[in-house]
Structures are given as structure tokens and as C-alpha cells.
């Protein structure tokens, strides 16, 4: 436990100094509020972009606040996921490649302490970035469209956060398997993409899939209720995340060599 705290503090300090704590939330906020802004200004944007004949009247139904938030979720699901995986790809491989990992592992540190400290610290950055972005976006939708009740907003945020929990576990696990950052990002994104696609293609067999999380979050926003399926997906996502973390610890233990 003591080593976990020491390692966790070091991770936090490192993310602070490297600026991750600043740039990641800012970029997420930009991604988030772009959605309500573009939805709101869509008529003007179309007018400016397309050379429409004089006098054309553009009629686009004003979306509801909930619909805008669903759109934001979809941005998170694509660009956000990619961004997060890229932000995580170096987390273990960098210390392995440079050899600074050997300064850690030459002391009485266990694989579990190491992996969990990485996981919790990185996860907290990502979740803070996500929450900051989502709250700001919610504020924008409230001003521009109509207000989504705050408890629905929080419930949808909570369920979507599970996707981040899963994504972080997967990327860390891949990070123990491979040494090359690009490879780690590629394999993780591919894996997460395949899961999402399979979930849409084979809904019957994939009820447990973390790929359903976004839909569940949307359902909460639009229909205003937390269904039974949401609970199932949440539980299976948590279980899968723990499984991937366990695998990461096992693979890490099997490293023949720390550093170079």
C-alpha cells in the first residue's frame, strides 16, 4: 500500500509536469462544446458553406438538449476514445524503453502495485477530463437548447465513465504486451473498435459488451430511465476491466527484463 501511494504520487507529479493535466481536459472540453455550438449554428453554417440560391429557406428542426448530449457522446466515442488511447500508449512502454523502470523494480515493488498505480493515476486524469468536458457541454445545451435534468446528465456520465474504465484497462494491458507505442495504440484502438462494431452487428450475443455503454447512456438521456440492461453492461464492464488489469499484472510479472 505504501509503495502504491509513492508510485501514485509520482505518476500525478509526472502528469502535472508533462502538462497532461492541462491539455487533455482542454481538448476534451473543446470536443465537447463544439457539438452544441455546431448544432446551434447549423443553419448559418450551411448558409455560409453552400452556395444556396437567393431566398432559400433552411428549415432544420431544433434538436432537444438530450439529443445534443447524445451527439456529444458520439464524439467522445470516436475522437475521445482515440485521444485517450493515444494519451495512454506511452504509460508503461516509455519507462520500459528508456530503462527507468529498472530504478523502480530494483526496489521492493510488486507488479500489482506498479500496474494499479499507473491505472488509478491515468484513469483519474481521463475521468476528470471527461467530466469537465461533459459538464461544460451540459451547461451549453442548457443555454442554447433546453435543460436536461441534472440527475440524468450525471447518470449518463457515470455510465459512460465505465467505457473509460474499460478503455484504460485494455490499453494498459496491451502496453504490457508490446514495446512500441504505435503498436500499443493501434492494437488497443483496433480491439475497442472491433468490440463496438460487433456490438452493433450482433446485438443478441453482445448484450454484455462494453460497446453498449454509449447506447445505454443515450437511452438514459432520451428516455430518462436506467434500464436493467444498463446494470448488466455496467457489471460486465467492471468485471472485464478487472480481468484485463489482472492480465496486465501477470504479463508484467513475466517480463524477463525490466528496462534495457
Amino acid at each position, binding site marked *: 500500500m505504501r509503495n502504491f501511494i509513492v508510485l501514485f504520487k509520482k505518476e500525478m507529479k509526472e502528469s502535472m509536469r*508533462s502538462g497532461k493535466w492541462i491539455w487533455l481536459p*482542454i*481538448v476534451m472540453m*473543446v470536443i465537447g*462544446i463544439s457539438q452544441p455550438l455546431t448544432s*446551434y*449554428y447549423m443553419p448559418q453554417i450551411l448558409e455560409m458553406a453552400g452556395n444556396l440560391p437567393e431566398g432559400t429557406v433552411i428549415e432544420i428542426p431544433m434538436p432537444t438538449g438530450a439529443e445534443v448530449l447524445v451527439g456529444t457522446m458520439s464524439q467522445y466515442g470516436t475522437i475521445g476514445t482515440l*485521444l485517450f488511447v493515444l*494519451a495512454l500508449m506511452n504509460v508503461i512502454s516509455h519507462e520500459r524503453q528508456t530503462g527507468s523502470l529498472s530504478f523502480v523494480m530494483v526496489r521492493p515493488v510488486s507488479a500489482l502495485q506498479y500496474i494499479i498505480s499507473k491505472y488509478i493515476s491515468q484513469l483519474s486524469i481521463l475521468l476528470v477530463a471527461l467530466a469537465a468536458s461533459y459538464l461544460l457541454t451540459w451547461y451549453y445545451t442548457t443555454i442554447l437548447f433546453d435543460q436536461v435534468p441534472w440527475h440524468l446528465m450525471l447518470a449518463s456520465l457515470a455510465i459512460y465513465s465505465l467505457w473509460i474504465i474499460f478503455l484504460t484497462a485494455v490499453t494498459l494491458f496491451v502496453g504490457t504486451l508490446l514495446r512500441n507505442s504505435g503498436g500499443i495504440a493501434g492494437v488497443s484502438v483496433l480491439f475497442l473498435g472491433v468490440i463496438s462494431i460487433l456490438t452493433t452487428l450482433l446485438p443478441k450475443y453482445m448484450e454484455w459488451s462494453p460497446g453498449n455503454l454509449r447506447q445505454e447512456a443515450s437511452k438514459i438521456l432520451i428516455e430518462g430511465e436506467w434500464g436493467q440492461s444498463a446494470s448488466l453492461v455496467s457489471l460486465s464492464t467492471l468485471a472485464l476491466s478487472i480481468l484485463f488489469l489482472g492480465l496486465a499484472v501477470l504479463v508484467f510479472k513475466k517480463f524477463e527484463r525490466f528496462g534495457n
Partner: protein
Amino acid sequence: MDTLFDVNWALLTPLLVLQAILMAFALVNCAKQEETNGPKWMWILIIIIVNIVGPVIYFLIGRKNNG
């Protein structure tokens, strides 16, 4: 030109401010960096020219020592 004046700046300003902070933060970080992956001036250009994506790419792969 009318459309531009319809824009509610109170709504857009935060977005522009966020982008400006991101760019400034990336530029300062890049300037302080002892070594970058590739020439520093190239990164400065990327950060300035490519909105949002430029700074992000810089933070992800531009630096040598801290990931």
C-alpha cells in the same frame, strides 16, 4: 456578412479562449523543451497552424523525454 453579426460572442468566446490557452501552453512547453522529436521550429509551426490537432500531436509525440 450579416450572419457573422448574428453570432453570439458570449457563446463562442470560451471556445476561442480554450483554443488559445491550449496553443499558448503548447508553445511555452515546446520552447522550454531541451530536445524535441524533430526540429523545434517545425513543432512551433505545427502548433500554430493546425488548430487543436497541432498542439495535441505535439503533446503526444513531439517530446523526447516525458511521455
